[in-house]
């Protein structure tokens, strides 16, 4: 069962620099939520704060609350490693582990938790995850080959397979198609559509048509001005967002890019 995310009054800092200010939103379970906005508006930073990945950058910290399933991610007792295990992430550039085969790439996360896995069990996970990522038919005959040998679009789907192999509750995607060609992009978009029945999906995209195509809800982030922190301008169902947005700047941004 997928989970919803409640964000309240979230500020994200890098050292003293306030990168994102005052975000409030509820991300629905089993739906696709897209974040759009100009470069540097903090949408990726915000996404990374949803599974505590932004902490990887030294000096990054957060004020406010992110609540998943009644638990606040930033409570003292919460383990970031466990958070990331439950909230998977797919990155902008496909990043399969270069030294591992396709098979081992898919199992990379599972192997962390259980050292000894039965061969049949492992095979099962690999097949299920690769099928889930619409990649099984393309790679089933070369599972032992390195993951780097795949095309960019296949690599990205391999990364999605790797992320869903550990059965997370939520899947975060940070511009997953920006490094891909249109055909691979369309394959990933189809996949996102299918995955939403099992996962809560949050996707950052610079491509507004993509947001319109795949998402149920859309959040528009913008900068208040040069050097100012990014903030959430508008958060609405995608249909409303693209036909009749509440905010003028949303409309300007969407129409400006659409035309």
């Amino acid at each position, binding site marked *: 069962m997928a989970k919803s995310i409640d964000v309240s009054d979230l500020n994200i800092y890098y050292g003293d620099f306030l990168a994102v200010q005052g975000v409030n939103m509820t991300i629905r379970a089993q739906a696709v939520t897209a974040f759009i906005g100009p470069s540097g508006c903090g949408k990726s930073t915000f996404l990374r704060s949803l599974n505590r990945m932004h902490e990887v950058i030294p000096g990054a910290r957060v004020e406010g609350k992110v609540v998943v399933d009644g638990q606040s991610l930033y409570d003292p007792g919460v383990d970031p*490693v466990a958070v*990331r295990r439950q909230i998977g992430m797919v990155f902008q550039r496909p*990043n*399969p582990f270069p030294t591992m085969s396709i098979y081992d790439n898919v199992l990379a996360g599972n192997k*962390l938790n259980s050292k000894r896995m039965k061969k049949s069990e492992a095979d099962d996970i690999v097949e299920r995850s690769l099928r889930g990522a619409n990649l099984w038919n393309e790679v089933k005959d070369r599972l032992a080959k390195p993951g780097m040998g795949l095309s960019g679009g296949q690599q990205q789907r391999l990364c999605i397979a790797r992320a869903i192999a*550990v059965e997370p509750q939520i899947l975060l995607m940070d511009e997953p198609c920006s490094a891909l060609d249109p055909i691979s992009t369309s394959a990933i978009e189809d996949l996102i559509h299918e995955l939403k029945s099992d996962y809560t999906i949050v996707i950052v995209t610079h491509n507004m048509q993509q947001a319109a195509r795949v998402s149920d809800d859309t959040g528009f982030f913008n900068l208040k001005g040069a050097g100012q922190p990014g903030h959430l301008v508008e958060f609405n169902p995608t249909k409303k967002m693209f036909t009749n947005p509440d905010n003028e700047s949303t409309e300007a941004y969407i129409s400006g890019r659409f035309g």
Partner: protein
Amino acid sequence: MSTTPTRTPTRTASAQPSRRGDAVFAGLARGAGLLIVLALAGVAIFLIVEGAPALGANEEQLYGKESLTLYVWPLLYGTLLAALLAILIAAPLAIGLALVISHYAPRRIARTLGYLVDLLAAVPSVVFGLWGIQVLAPTLFPAYQWLADHLGFLPFFEGPATTGRTIFTAAVVLAVMALPIITAICREVFLQTPRTHEEAALALGATRWEMVRMTVFPYARSGIISGIMLGLGRALGETMAVAMVLSVSGAVTVNLISSQNPSTIAANIALNFGNASGTKVNVLIFSGLVLFVVSFIVNFLGRWVAARGQVKG
């Protein structure tokens, strides 16, 4: 001067009036490059020419040994033993050290730590030798006694422990000297691990160590090997520290803590060169040639591994 190969079209300027200036400057630069080639060829040639007479050396000129092989072998053995022992000590330390600097220490501290390691590299080898014989050898001596008493059944610790100036002490000094080189190279390659791979591991819920094991080590494997090889090269060729620390007898033994130690090629040259004359000099130069070849091979392998790793990406 039309032969000057300028195959970098983007950087070629064709300004007619100063053709001569260009030709002269290009010639100078090329000449400097050729000089380096000549110098290295010269090192090999002069060592061969001056080392060759050693093949005809008699027993007296060979410091009492029957043949050149019998003279050089114990030295080569000592060189390899000390260097390998040093790398055995230094390599794990260097990898840990590099990991601390690249992935464990906060960034600001990491810079200071890196600087401290560089300082270690800057200390002259003769000072290491002085430290080794005056400070380290007396400090380690009780440990050798303990080892000889309690683990004396092992051939390495047979003893008798009568001095701190053993091959083990020499190896520790060599390890300290090789440490900065290996650390520097490992640190470099650890830092080159693509951030996306590290984040992929973390996003799967890996702890820091699991992230290192999944992404950093596989990526850096060839870099680590090449760093170890280059550290080995340094340890093989190091002269003064060994010459000063080691109490030498010329024995070929695996006993690490006795006063009967094989010397190393470099230390042997340093110790005997001052008093050598005639063919004895040629004998010493010949042993230097052997050292040159060995360290050439080790360094070559190190570079080769590194280059192969780079291609793999």
